């Protein structure tokens, strides 16, 4: 593995990643503007894969655009939309386009997205896809057929540190590590004490975890977020936003405080600004 992210994962430095949503359509100007705002401040930019089962510009094409601008993309790959033939083929495609960082996820179910009537695929689960990617590295595909040239990947997976029972999530992490994951990004965390307990419980796994932080911009936004899969926003954070004169400013403060705390205990952070990436430089500055 040679990617910049991979090298950084081997160091003991605090790793910062953020995510961008590809546009619904082909106008990439705004996306590239956002990338310019954060590209040099982060160690990797996740590009979501039809997140929340909405149909968008593809993650792979978007990653390539970021790569051409000199940024470090992380290709998100969901198991929801493709079978094992297409998934493996896209992994090979990613590699030849210079994309080595891949975050493998199961993907939000389409019944909660814009395409309720679509056929969900889930031919492989995320653990199986991780293993498939490592199999490709070994020079054969899942069918055991020899490859003409094999790829190399820096593979990540996700875990939800706020889910209950947490033992089940940790078991998943263990399986994902055995299948090939070398880093984890998480659903948003809001409670540093809860996260520290999670860290303690995962210490033995000896892996890198970048906990997610999210920019809560308004009370309305919190309402929408609370309806999304795997999101557990504690009351304390909700109250701070609701009582604030300037909710966005308060959201930036909460985010920066969280990162400041994480700098003391975590391997890194994964910032989800959801359309407000222009505030990431300010958040990072305040978090120092």
């Amino acid at each position, binding site marked *: 593995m040679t990617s910049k992210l991979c090298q950084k994962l081997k160091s003991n430095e605090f790793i910062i990643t953020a995510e961008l949503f590809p546009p619904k359509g082909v106008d990439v100007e705004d996306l590239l503007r956002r990338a310019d705002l954060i590209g040099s401040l982060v160690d990797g930019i996740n590009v979501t894969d039809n997140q929340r089962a909405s149909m968008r510009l593809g993650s792979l094409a978007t990653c390539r655009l970021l790569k051409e601008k000199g940024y470090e993309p992380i290709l998100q790959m969901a198991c929801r939309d493709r079978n094992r033939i297409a998934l493996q083929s896209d992994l090979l495609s990613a590699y030849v386009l210079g994309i080595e960082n891949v975050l493998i996820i199961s993907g939000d*179910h389409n019944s909660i997205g814009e395409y309720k009537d679509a056929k969900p695929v*889930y031919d492989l689960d995320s*653990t*199986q896809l991780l293993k498939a990617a490592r199999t490709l590295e070994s020079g054969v595909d899942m069918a055991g057929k020899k490859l003409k040239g094999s790829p190399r990947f820096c593979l990540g997976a996700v875990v939800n540190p706020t889910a209950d029972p947490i033992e089940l999530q940790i078991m998943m992490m263990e399986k994902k590590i055995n299948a090939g994951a070398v880093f984890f990004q998480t659903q948003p965390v809001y409670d540093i004490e809860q996260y520290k307990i999670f860290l303690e419980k995962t210490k033995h796994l000896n892996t890198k975890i970048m906990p997610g932080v999210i920019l809560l911009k308004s009370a309305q936004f919190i309402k929408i977020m609370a309806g999304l899969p795997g*999101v557990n926003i504690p009351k304390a954070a909700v109250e701070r936003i609701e009582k604030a004169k300037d909710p966005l400013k308060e959201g930036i403060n909460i985010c920066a405080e969280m990162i400041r705390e994480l700098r003391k205990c975590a391997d890194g952070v994964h910032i989800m600004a959801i359309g407000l990436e222009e505030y990431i430089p300010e958040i990072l500055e305040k978090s120092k």
Partner: protein
Amino acid sequence: MIITTSKPFSEILSNIKSYKRIFVVGCAACAAKCQTGGEEQVKNMIEELKKENKEVTGFIVLDTPCDMRIVKKDLAKLPEVKRSEALLVLACGGGVQAIEKIVDKPLLPALDPVFVGSIERIGVYNEFCSICGQCIIDSTGGICPVARCAKSLMNGPCGGAVNGKCEVDPELDCAWVLIYNKLNKINKKENIFKVFMEPRKHSKPKKLDNSRKL
């Protein structure tokens, strides 16, 4: 059991609009249990058809319309069937298609098959099995993640569950939390938590592949 729901009557009417003489077939097995294709539903259907000025040539509730032998014995030779223009069948697709092999008449399904269900009580059916052809529930505490996890995940839950409920429906239990709790209860956690579950085989067992003969 095959769980079925009744098609909206407007859809049935639209499907039969070019036929006048209709024969009605019910199912005394699954569809009767579901109260979608038993004698009572067949009789109600006949009343509705009459209101629409259709001539009902006759009816029968077959024991198992999915069994071609029964279709041959009890349905095929009925003179009422012969003088009908079409058959309206209150059974699942297995029933309609068994009849298709025997009777050369237009066949109109009156039900939509939904899933293989376990009955809790009338009207409450659980989709516990997706008849995937490769049963693995020995290692998952008797709870099938293929059928009961919305994403059919084999190696554990996704991150989408909140408070033990599935991301697709807050009423629905996360299958993996159920499996976890069950395996904990029976002290068999190592069954699944340490084992990598291979990708499913979507091909059917070989002897069923072509002719689907057992």
